[in-house]
């Protein structure tokens, strides 16, 4: 079965790109994923749409009428209104968390978290040969809503220093970028992970990964990953299969 794969050409690897890669990797054997970049959507049996701000309604025309799933990695602030309208009418929505679905008015959406390799992070925790200690905050500090200042306020209020990691134009001074491959080992060194965004974070991959790595996590009600940690942590590991079950039955 040919499954058209629509996603923006981001030019960097963020949470959405990691999630897409995990979904691709967990595709069933009978699925052939066909890349359908903006302006070049091929004919397929069914489609999966990821971030799509680079697509026009004309790009989506070949998809109309065919089974389509839209995985909402974010709340779609930059999606063209006509494309959003098309998605609402023609694609079955999948959200990362209940708070995202509620915020977007997609109450009928399937709820599937981004896949998290919990075992990989747990193994990193087991390999740590020193006592875990300290507090860490990691994010791609690209927008104000990631709110490193809230972590700094938490640090002052709790009289506890915080080590910041992650790049981005709004990264706190001294914050170092970390390759994703090094993330399990980094998180496993720390006792506590803090992340306090000021806008809705549909999932918040690093929150789930820090928890998987055995950190105490300090976060807030704007982070969708909390729902899965509190209510259904097993879904983090079955998300790939769960996604394809929905995608192939849309």
């Amino acid at each position, binding site marked *: 079965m040919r499954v058209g794969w629509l996603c923006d050409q981001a030019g960097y690897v963020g949470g959405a790109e990691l999630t897409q890669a995990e979904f691709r990797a967990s595709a069933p054997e009978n699925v052939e994923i066909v890349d359908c970049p903006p302006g070049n959507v091929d004919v397929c049996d069914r489609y999966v749409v990821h971030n799509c701000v680079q697509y026009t309604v004309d790009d989506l025309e070949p998809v109309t009428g065919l089974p389509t799933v839209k995985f909402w990695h974010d709340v779609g602030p930059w999606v063209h209104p006509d494309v959003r309208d098309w998605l609402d009418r023609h694609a079955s929505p999948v959200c990362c968390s209940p708070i995202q679905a509620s915020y977007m008015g997609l109450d009928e959406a399937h709820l599937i978290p981004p896949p998290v390799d919990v075992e990989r992070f*747990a*193994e990193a*925790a*087991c390999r740590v040969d020193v006592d875990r200690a300290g507090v860490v905050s990691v994010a791609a500090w690209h927008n104000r809503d990631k709110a490193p200042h*809230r972590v700094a306020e*938490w640090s002052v209020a709790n009289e506890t220093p915080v080590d910041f990691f992650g790049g981005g134009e709004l990264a706190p001074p001294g914050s170092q970028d970390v390759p994703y491959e090094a993330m399990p080992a980094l998180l496993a060194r720390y*006792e506590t992970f*803090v992340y*306090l965004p*000021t806008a809705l974070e549909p999932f918040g991959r690093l929150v789930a990964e820090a*928890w*998987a*790595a*055995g*950190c*105490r*996590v*300090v*976060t*807030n*009600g*704007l982070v969708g990953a*909390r729902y899965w*940690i*509190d209510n259904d*942590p097993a879904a983090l590991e079955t998300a790939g299969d769960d996604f394809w079950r929905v995608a192939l039955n849309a």
Partner: protein
Amino acid sequence: VSRRSCRTSRRSPSSCGAGWLVKGQLQRTAIGAYQFRPDVEDIIDALRRAYATQRGSLQAKARAFALKYDVEQVMSEYMLPALEQAAARFQVQQPVTIEPRQTVAA
């Protein structure tokens, strides 16, 4: 910017219980909201029309409309619910702690 090319607007009739609507322009403010900047010449024109009108019939209508904005009503119907919303938005940002999961050596 010439006046002709500016976006012009009139206040919504819903905000006018009695009187005359004037032209003006929506002006974006520093907090991301819009204010209405009324056209001064149009205000003068409206005042002239008001002066030349028998205003008695408009008085009761104007008062009835203004009562919708009675301080008690605004407080109970708008202000307190708005403050509750603001409090909820503040509350959802407060830190909560998720205790660490138990990791077991493979």
